[in-house]
């Protein structure tokens, strides 16, 4: 009779929420995370309903599990056995039946109430798995067995998978090589020779005549361990470039002042600029581009040295090792060198020679590259098709010369072909002349405060010509003293100076010439300024000369002079200004104001006293005023009588 109740009524919730299983194919169904109601259920589950004396509570709770039911029943039975000794043999049966009836009635009531869904709702109470501990050994054994089969299945599947992955990887490597090759093919010229794939990185197809073959070989990169993880930058394709194109190279152009002895001319410093690798470019691409750059640099240098030997110039060009030296101006040295650094040695080389100042002329280096490419293009376009069947071979513009009726000058323009070296020397000369002019003007402007020099450089220049506008003004009088405006056209060998009135002066490349010229212009400016000031002040200009022939001889330029008379004619100021002797200012007083003048017998008439008398020099340095024109204005103001 100790067995479970005869009638088992079990109410189960939908099982999906509690069931947690491992399917044969390995998929697992987890218990979904607890929602609000689930949480409530869990809390409810903690309540030990079996201990409550009121069995109705148990029923209200909803769904006692079989095990719980059993436990409860056993407890109940024990209770009856212990505390209530049986009165008659069917007592326990009766009791049980009665309690079952009571429970059934309660259950019925509950169900009817629940059915209404008005006052009560049923909620499942999940079972704590820990509580479930009925036949543990059996469960363990069955679980072990199940897990064993599942594990076997899994292992089998894993084996299959790993096999297919390895296969895939091999396939992909093959495919990667092909796709890389395709990418290489889209950017570089390739051809197949035997079982090798050769590529061409020379500029021959772009019109280069450089004899280097520039061939590289495409190889498959196979030295990679299949088992190890492939590195991030692994590329199945690799290129092998000729050994003489390895490393990096550049052309260095610089201008030096002193020429060192030819004896210690050597290989110039080869410190290497770190190549910047763009993200996302392949290794082989970087490698090929570097090699192509080396090739171009070599071609430029070869062309330059060939021209250096061929061209006859007054001072012969020198080609030593990797350096071409030319003398554009006396005492000046233009050196063009090919710097080619290969691989690992660079680090030792770089450090000791680095302290040298970076005297690159990047513009010229860039222009060299550009001119080389232009040369290539010219080579290419002279033989380019399509070509009119009747036209003579040659350059396209040459072909047009006939139908367009070019005259001799135009044709000779077309035909003249300056070499690379000549062009670059001309450009270097121009650059040097320009920088020297700028330096001369700047040093003059900083040295001399009165008058002021302003230089306005044009932004856009030709490679052989640039211009600067030089204004000479006096501080505070910019509006009235604008007489000197110079336009300096800096060419290759000389500087042409155009005055505002159209006069043209040609200066050579000598620094001193420009400096002397500007000094003389500045001295003239002062006299011009006095003239302008006189107009503003109402004074009268009596005489003016840019180049006076009297007085001490100036070493540069000529002195200029002006004489102005006060509005009422009583006073006169004479100014003489020379570039070297400086300014000399004289004031002429009326005869009436001078006492020491001897009375002459000849000029007795009082009207002669209105004549101006002797002159007196003004101690100009003692005059008050911040600059020459200001001092002059003060002087004029002092000599003008108050009305």
């Amino acid at each position, binding site marked *: 009779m100790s067995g479970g109740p005869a009638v088992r009524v079990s109410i189960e919730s939908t099982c999906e929420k509690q069931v947690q299983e491992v399917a044969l194919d390995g998929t697992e169904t987890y218990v979904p995370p607890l929602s609000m109601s689930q949480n409530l259920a869990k809390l409810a589950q903690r309540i030990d309903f079996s201990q409550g004396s009121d069995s109705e509570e148990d029923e209200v709770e909803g769904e006692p599990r079989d095990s719980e039911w059993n436990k409860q029943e056993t407890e109940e039975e024990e209770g009856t056995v212990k505390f209530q000794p049986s009165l008659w043999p069917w007592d326990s049966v009766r009791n049980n039946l009665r309690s079952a009836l009571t429970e059934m009635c309660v259950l019925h009531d509950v169900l009817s109430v629940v059915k209404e869904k008005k006052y009560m709702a049923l909620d499942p109470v999940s079972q704590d798995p820990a509580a479930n501990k009925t036949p543990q050994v059996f469960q363990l054994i069955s679980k072990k067995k199940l897990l064993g089969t599942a594990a076997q299945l899994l292992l089998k599947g894993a084996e299959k998978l790993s096999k297919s992955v390895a296969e895939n990887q091999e396939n992909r490597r093959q495919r990667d090589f092909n796709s890389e090759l395709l990418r290489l093919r889209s950017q570089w010229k390739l051809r197949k020779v035997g079982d090798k794939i050769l590529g061409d990185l020379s500029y021959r197809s772009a019109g280069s005549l450089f004899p280097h073959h520039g061939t590289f070989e495409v190889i498959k990169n196979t030295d990679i361990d299949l088992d190890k993880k492939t590195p991030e930058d692994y590329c199945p394709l690799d290129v092998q470039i000729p050994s003489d194109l390895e490393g990096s190279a550049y052309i260095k152009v610089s201008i030096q002042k002193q020429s060192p002895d030819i004896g210690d001319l050597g290989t110039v410093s080869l410190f290497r600029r770190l190549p910047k690798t763009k993200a996302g470019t392949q290794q082989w691409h970087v490698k090929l581009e570097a090699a192509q750059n080396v090739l171009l640099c070599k071609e430029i240098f070869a062309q330059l040295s060939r021209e250096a030997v061929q061209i006859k110039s007054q001072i012969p060009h020198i080609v030593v090792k990797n350096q071409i030296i030319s003398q554009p101006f006396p005492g000046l040295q233009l050196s063009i060198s090919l710097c080619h650094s290969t691989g690992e040695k660079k680090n030792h080389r770089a450090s000791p020679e680095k302290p040298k100042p970076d005297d690159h002329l990047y513009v010229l280096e860039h222009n060299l590259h550009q001119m080389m490419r232009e040369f290539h293009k010219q080579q290419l376009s002279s033989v380019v098709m399509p070509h009119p069947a*009747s*036209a*003579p071979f040659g350059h396209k513009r040459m*072909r047009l*010369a*006939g*139908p*367009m*009726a*070019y*005259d*001799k000058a135009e*044709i000779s323009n077309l035909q003249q072909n300056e070499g690379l070296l000549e062009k670059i020397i001309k450009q270097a000369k121009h650059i040097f002349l320009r920088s020297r002019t700028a330096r001369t003007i700047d040093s003059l402007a900083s040295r001399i405060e009165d008058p002021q020099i302003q230089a306005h450089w044009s932004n856009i220049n030709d490679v052989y010509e640039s211009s600067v506008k030089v204004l000479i003004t006096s501080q505070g009088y910019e509006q009235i003293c604008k007489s000197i405006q110079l336009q300096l056209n800096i060419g290759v060998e000389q500087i042409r100076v155009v005055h505002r009135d159209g006069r043209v002066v040609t200066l050579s490349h000598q620094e001193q010439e420009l400096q002397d010229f500007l000094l003389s212009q500045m001295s003239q400016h002062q006299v011009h300024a006095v003239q302008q000031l006189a107009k503003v002040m109402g004074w009268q200009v009596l005489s003016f000369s840019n180049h006076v022939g009297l007085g001490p001889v100036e070493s540069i330029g000529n002195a200029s002079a002006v004489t102005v008379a006060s509005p009422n004619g009583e006073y006169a100021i004479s100014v003489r200004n020379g570039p070297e002797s400086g300014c000399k200012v004289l004031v002429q007083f009326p005869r009436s104001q001078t006492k020491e003048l001897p009375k002459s017998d000849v000029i007795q008439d009082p009207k002669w006293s209105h004549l101006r008398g002797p002159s007196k020099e003004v101690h100009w340095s003692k005059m008050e005023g911040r600059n020459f024109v200001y001092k002059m204005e003060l002087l004029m103001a002092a000599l003008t009588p108050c009305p």
Partner: protein
Amino acid sequence: MGVTCVCQVPVAEGKSVQQSVDIVHKKLEQLGAVKQGSFWVDCETYHPTGNVSGQPSKLLYVMHNSETPLSCMGLFEGGPCLIADANFDVLMVKLKSHFQNAKAHKVECRGSRYRYCDFLIKVGTVTMSSSARGISVEVEYCPCVVPGECWNLTKEFMQSFLGPSVPELPSVFAAKPEGLFAPSDCVDTMTQYLELFNKLRKMQMPGSNVR
């Protein structure tokens, strides 16, 4: 290529053609002009052989100028003209069945070239089948291409060494629909030469019996 004016200089009384040319040279050198090589202009005449009904046949002149050494000009009498490269001569040989070369009518003008600042002066002797027919003087003002802008200057300059025999404004310039202010080109020069050659061709040289 500037504005050019081609004119004929009469042969001085009692002087040969060469002597007259020398006189002009001397005048130019006195002026300060510098000799700069030589020049030549030639002209060949072609008769059209094919009869195009209803159209009077026009002569075709093929001319060369040393100033434009790579070009060849084909001018129809009073009609259109074309500028081509030197292969045009070869083409004319191929067109023998349509244009026949009148060899006897070949006119040439050779002489020396002077430069005086912006002016280019070419004094030449016009020869037709190896007999000198006259003297031509071409004056070119290089910096300008608009005849209206520089004609007076050119005229004044020509007066300085040609004296009274300075021509009027060349008719090529005046005849243009745009008038004097249309830019001139090498065809204008060649038209003037052609007019001069035709004039000299019709003129009967004393003492010569060449037609």
